[in-house]
């Protein structure tokens, strides 16, 4: 029955093998390199597909295998893999996007001299991401968690000669590292509180069942919040979202793979995986919901004022990840994971489409584009599908998942429902702005020589467009198949007419406003900027969060470092010098006795002799 699931450990090994071969190849064998990388991910994809098909049967049980990694005294740290329906779904998403990005990069990175290195990194990333997905306990998840972070860092900084890329790579690593430190602490806490020091998800599930009471609520909340901190870093939630827009310095296929579809969703995946802990703590759930909701609206408004096509999409990703977090926080596991699932496809599609545009016009500024729709038909149509899916227009996939989240919010938390609606409106607005500015209207400064990208690049777009349209039908208000498959228990039919209508309405409204301003041009584009310039400025500069970090974190740290340098040099270094001076002066003093005069020497000898005699004689008189 679980024949394929048992072989799941093979999946990450394909890309790992590809990585090893590619590293050994170095920079030579460019064509072979591309082929090896693509084949590795293809093999992984095929096997993942088999596993999912195998598991579609409702009666499949989870398959788990683990071995001892380290045995230290009474403590054992284990590593293993586990296949559940959730991981199986993630496997397919990761391997499919990875495979398509591999194909796409053959065209996009064609002229890069380090294309073999690029494929090596991508393979390493795919391996790590698959390892993360398959991990059966928090420790091995953490290990792969860090590894994907490093791959992301390497790929963001792939064009290392650009100082901006270097800064972005550094930022991506360090900011996510803050979250990682939280996750690590959470793991430490969990290790000492779990019975038997077990870290595997099965045990976590049984301990945090809401009634055993083995762990107090306070500690549960703390653990959940620390784990959430890790997710905040990785999934670019406020206030650790700052690295994600900067990470767009990396090659665009990477933005699609890592910073849209897979790695940034790892935070959502992590919470879904440890959902039992969160469910035990109302406070943690609320935190997740509010942070997610705030991030959703916060990033969506920023995206309205950006001019770089990739930054718009990046903020959009942040916002959509906020949506997922909000869903999880509101108690809708299915909603969060479902949105992760659909978002992976249409956001990867949008990024790859953006890559196709950038490939054609060699700029990322949307104001320099325009009128590209006629020249790049495939790109334009697929991009439109992606944009509509993202805006939540039925019957595309994004609509169903977004609707599910909004329904959950509508039923439990009206405030977040309105936040979600506002974010949905902004989403539709910035996507229509982007679309109309790029594809319609007069040709811009950069779009004169543009032409459609090669088939290696358009084919993945077309392939991704299919799930972007259809993936939503696995879970509709009248069909809860996905949810019951995921959680193993049939969920009651859900859906609320109000939420559906409202969601469609704000989506259409957003597109309409966008069309009025940027398509038809009946409303002046600068109307808002003229009236409230500070607001536009605020949005353009992303609420000055980077600057705030610079003032409140970076500067004080640098200052502290500078102060400590002075202390180290003069106070502690002074201690060393004092020792030196003391020794040298003692030596000088002793050297004075050494005057070369025989008479002085013999005088010293006589004095010494006298002292010895006195001592020897005097000892008798002592008691």
């Amino acid at each position, binding site marked *: 029955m679980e024949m394929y699931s048992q072989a799941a450990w093979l999946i990450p090994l394909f890309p790992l093998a590809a990585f090893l071969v590619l590293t050994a190849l170095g920079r030579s064998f460019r064509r072979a390199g591309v082929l090896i990388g693509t084949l590795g991910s293809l093999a992984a994809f095929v096997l993942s597909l088999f596993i999912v098909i195998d598991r579609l049967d409702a009666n499949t049980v989870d398959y788990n295998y683990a071995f001892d990694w380290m045995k230290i005294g009474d403590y054992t740290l284990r590593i293993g893999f586990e296949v559940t329906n959730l991981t199986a779904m993630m496997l397919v998403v990761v391997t499919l996007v990875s495979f398509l990005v591999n194909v796409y990069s053959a065209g996009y990175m064609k002229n890069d001299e380090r294309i073999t290195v690029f494929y090596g990194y991508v393979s390493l990333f795919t391996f790590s991401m698959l390892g993360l997905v398959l991990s059966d306990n928090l420790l091995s998840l953490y290990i792969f968690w860090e590894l994907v972070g490093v791959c992301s860092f390497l790929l963001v900084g792939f064009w290392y000669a650009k100082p901006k890329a270097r800064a972005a790579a550094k930022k991506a690593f360090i900011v996510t590292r803050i979250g990682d430190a939280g996750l690590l602490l959470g793991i430490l806490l969990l290790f000492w509180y779990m019975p038997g020091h077990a870290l595997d998800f099965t045990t976590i599930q049984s301990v945090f069942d809401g009634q055993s009471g083995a762990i107090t609520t306070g500690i549960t909340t703390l653990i959940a919040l620390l784990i959430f901190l890790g997710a905040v870093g990785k999934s670019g939630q406020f206030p650790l979202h700052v690295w994600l827009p900067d990470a767009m310095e990396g090659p665009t296929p990477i933005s699609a793979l890592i910073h849209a579809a897979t790695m940034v969703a790892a935070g959502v995946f992590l919470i879904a995986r440890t959902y039992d802990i969160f469910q035990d703590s109302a406070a943690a759930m609320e935190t997740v919901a509010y942070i997610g909701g705030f991030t959703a609206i916060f990033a969506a408004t920023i995206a309205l004022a950006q001019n770089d096509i990739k930054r718009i999409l990046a903020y959009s990703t942040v916002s959509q990840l906020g949506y997922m977090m909000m869903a999880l926080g509101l108690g809708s596991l299915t909603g969060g994971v479902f949105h992760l699932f659909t978002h992976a496809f249409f956001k990867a599609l949008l990024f790859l489409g953006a890559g196709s545009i950038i490939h054609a016009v060699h700029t990322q500024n949307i104001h320099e584009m325009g009128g590209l729709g006629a020249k790049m038909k495939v790109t334009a149509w697929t991009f439109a599908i992606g944009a509509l899916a993202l805006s939540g227009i039925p019957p595309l996939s994004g609509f169903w998942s977004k609707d599910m989240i909004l329904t959950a919010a509508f039923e439990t938390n009206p405030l977040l429902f309105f936040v979600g609606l506002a974010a949905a409106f902004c989403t539709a607005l910035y996507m229509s702005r982007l679309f109309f500015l790029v594809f319609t209207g007069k040709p811009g400064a950069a779009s004169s020589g543009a032409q459609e990208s090669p088939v290696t690049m358009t084919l993945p777009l077309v392939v991704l467009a299919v799930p972007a349209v259809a993936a939503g039908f696995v879970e509709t208000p009248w069909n809860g198949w996905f949810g019951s498959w995921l959680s193993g228990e049939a969920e009651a039919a859900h859906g609320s007419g109000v939420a559906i209508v409202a969601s469609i309405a704000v989506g259409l409204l957003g597109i309409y406003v966008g069309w009025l301003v940027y398509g038809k041009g009946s409303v002046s584009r600068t109307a808002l900027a003229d009236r409230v310039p500070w607001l536009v400025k605020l949005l353009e500069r992303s609420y000055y969060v980077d600057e705030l970090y610079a003032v409140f974190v970076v500067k004080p740290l640098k200052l502290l470092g500078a102060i400590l340098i002075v202390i180290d040099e003069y106070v502690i270094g002074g201690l060393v010098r004092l020792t030196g001076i003391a020794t040298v002066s003692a030596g000088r003093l002793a050297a004075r006795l050494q005057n*070369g*005069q*025989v008479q002085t020497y013999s005088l010293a000898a006589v004095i010494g002799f006298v002292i010895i005699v006195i001592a020897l004689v005097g000892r008798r008189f002592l008691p």
Partner: protein
Amino acid sequence: MLPSYLTVAAILFCIGLYGALVKRNAIIVLLSLELMLNAVNLNLVAFSKYGVVPSLTGQIFSLFTITVAAAEAAIGVAILFALFRLRGTVNVDEFDKMRR
């Protein structure tokens, strides 16, 4: 009787020691050394006569010492001559070659 001999010898030795340590003129230092040696000789002879086991050994030994002292004085004066030729002085303060 023995204590008075020993006292004289001790006084002689101390004068010699004082001279050897304090005097600036190298010749006087040399002579002071002789004084110390003679104090020792005096002791040897005194012990050979009034000691616990009186015997001739002490007297003969002092003859040896006198011989050695003579040789030593000769060598000492010769070294002083050489030094005087080299440095043009017999002031021991200026003989501080050992310092370097």
